[in-house]
């Protein structure tokens, strides 16, 4: 039943309307003019407002608009003895739903209020949808801005990687040049020791340390290059040359990329099939999917404290299969289907942009494969990727 405010100066019709509506079970309030009515509406909204409207009495056009402004969502019904053009046009201007001419009968009031209730219900639903939609659009806009920011970081990263590589080249050439002249330096030092009787032990130590430093420089360069190459391959848009992709190599590179994220609390176990055939896929794309899955598992495990990720590769008759299992909290059963939706995320604090799995699904299906998710009976999530094996030429 509706909550109704009746505004009337207080002649007989007001009481009559209130009686009719109360007898129909509506919650009815009353007041004597539009000013008071507007005040009441501001304090407490109503579903329906039934107001007297007259060009000569206190509730005129200006006051009607106050009622309208006080409660934008209420459905207004005007009751009037006048049916002038001014009354009608003012009613329309104030978005009045119905006009009841005095003298009225009970049926006219009941019918009008019943219709107004329907309209109010539809308006409320529309308003709720509008608010939901606005929230969705706000969320999507935020996520798009975030995704765009990430994308521009990706573009910058290529330049940064190139610059790092240049500096690494310098360190690398420098280190190896020192290595090259080390024997010469050693001979020189030995000559000096013999000529001057310097401390032999000290000289041996210096030469040893030099070799160690060079070997540290080399291993530092190797490690840095493994990281930058993994990022380089990851951010590279992919070429036209179809050379097939080594799935195990992809997994190792993806693990290298996620090493920093995984090492804190995740134990990684790999069971990679031997001599697997290449798959018909772009290496960067497959790597992107694996990185997404690994980071998701790392996030899931983090909520449990620590845990493990197992990756297994198998070769079927026509497909290559990668299974990634974690022992995190798993996927809520009612969300298993939704996780593939774009911008859907269960991560908090802006951690996820809700694009990872949706993009991953797009990539794998684009390669003619499939990606599925389920919960393990022992707890945790299992993601399975199948990609067609590359046919021998």
């Amino acid at each position, binding site marked *: 039943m509706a909550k109704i405010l009746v505004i009337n100066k207080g002649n007989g019709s007001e009481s009559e309307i209130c009686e009719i509506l109360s007898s129909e079970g509506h919650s009815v309030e009353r007041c004597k003019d539009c000013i008071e009515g507007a005040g009441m509406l501001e304090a407490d909204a109503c579903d329906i407002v039934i107001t007297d409207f007259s060009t000569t009495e206190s509730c005129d056009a200006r006051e009607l608009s106050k009622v309208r402004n006080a409660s934008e969502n209420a459905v207004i019904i005007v009751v009037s003895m006048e049916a002038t053009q001014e009354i009608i046009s003012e009613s329309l201007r104030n978005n009045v739903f119905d006009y009841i001419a005095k003298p009225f009968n009970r049926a006219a009031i009941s019918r009008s209020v019943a219709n107004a209730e329907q309209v109010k219900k539809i308006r409320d639903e529309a308003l709720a949808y509008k608010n939901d939609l606005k929230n969705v659009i706000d969320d999507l806009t935020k996520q798009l801005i975030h995704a765009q920011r990430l994308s521009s970081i990706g573009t910058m990263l290529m330049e940064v990687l*190139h610059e790092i*590589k*240049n500096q*690494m*080249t*310098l*360190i*690398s*050439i*420098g280190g*190896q*040049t020192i290595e*090259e*002249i080390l024997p010469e330096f050693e001979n020189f030092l030995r000559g000096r020791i013999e000529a001057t009787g310097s401390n032999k032990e000290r000289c041996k130590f210096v030469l040893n340390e030099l070799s160690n430093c060079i070997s540290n420089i*080399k291993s530092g*360069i*190797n490690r840095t*290059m493994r990281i930058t*190459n993994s990022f*380089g391959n990851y951010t*590279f848009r992919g*070429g*036209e*040359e179809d*050379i097939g992709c080594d799935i195990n190599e992809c997994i190792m590179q993806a693990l290298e990329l996620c090493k920093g994220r995984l090492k804190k609390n995740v134990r990684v176990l790999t069971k990679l099939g031997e001599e697997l055939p290449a798959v018909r896929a772009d290496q960067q794309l497959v790597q992107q999917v694996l990185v997404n899955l690994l980071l998701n598992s790392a996030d899931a495990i983090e909520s449990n404290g620590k845990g493990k990720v197992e990756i297994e590769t198998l070769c079927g008759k026509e497909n290559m299969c990668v299974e990634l299992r974690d022992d995190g909290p798993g996927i809520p059963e009612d969300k298993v289907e939704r996780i593939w939706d774009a911008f859907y995320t269960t991560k908090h604090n802006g951690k996820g942009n809700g694009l990872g799995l949706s993009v991953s699904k797009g990539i794998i299906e684009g390669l003619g494969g499939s990606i599925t998710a389920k919960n393990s009976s022992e707890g945790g999530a299992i993601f399975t990727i199948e990609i067609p094996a590359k046919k021998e030429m």
Partner: protein
Amino acid sequence: MNKHLLIVDDEADIRKNLCSYFKLKGFEVDAAENGVAALDILAVKHIDIIISDVKMPGMDGVELLREVRKQYPMIRVIMITGYVTLENALSCMRHGADTCIFKPFQDLNELTDAVNASAKSLDMWQKKLRELLDMKRDGLEGDNGQ
């Protein structure tokens, strides 16, 4: 005789360091910052082997490679690149580079080995051409011998 190298790279420090390294290895070395500067040097100096970066402003390494193949077929070219992609490597191979070595040269011996291999192949050609030249001088070559 020591081979004469031309190092072409737009990164001044890399250019300088590679020059020092190969001087240390006993090569004669010149350097240029891009393809155009390299062609200017080639016009006035005898160069045996070019080590050229692929991506450079002005004339890049692949354009230089094409130009060298046209104008100086005897010069060997080794490409070096930080942009490690299949496309880059294939492009170098298709245009006749001896090999393509990736920066940051985790093992500089790879580049040294490539230079030595190019030098050896050059020596072979020069030896064969000299033999032919001698034969021609002695009236023993091809048509003259009939």
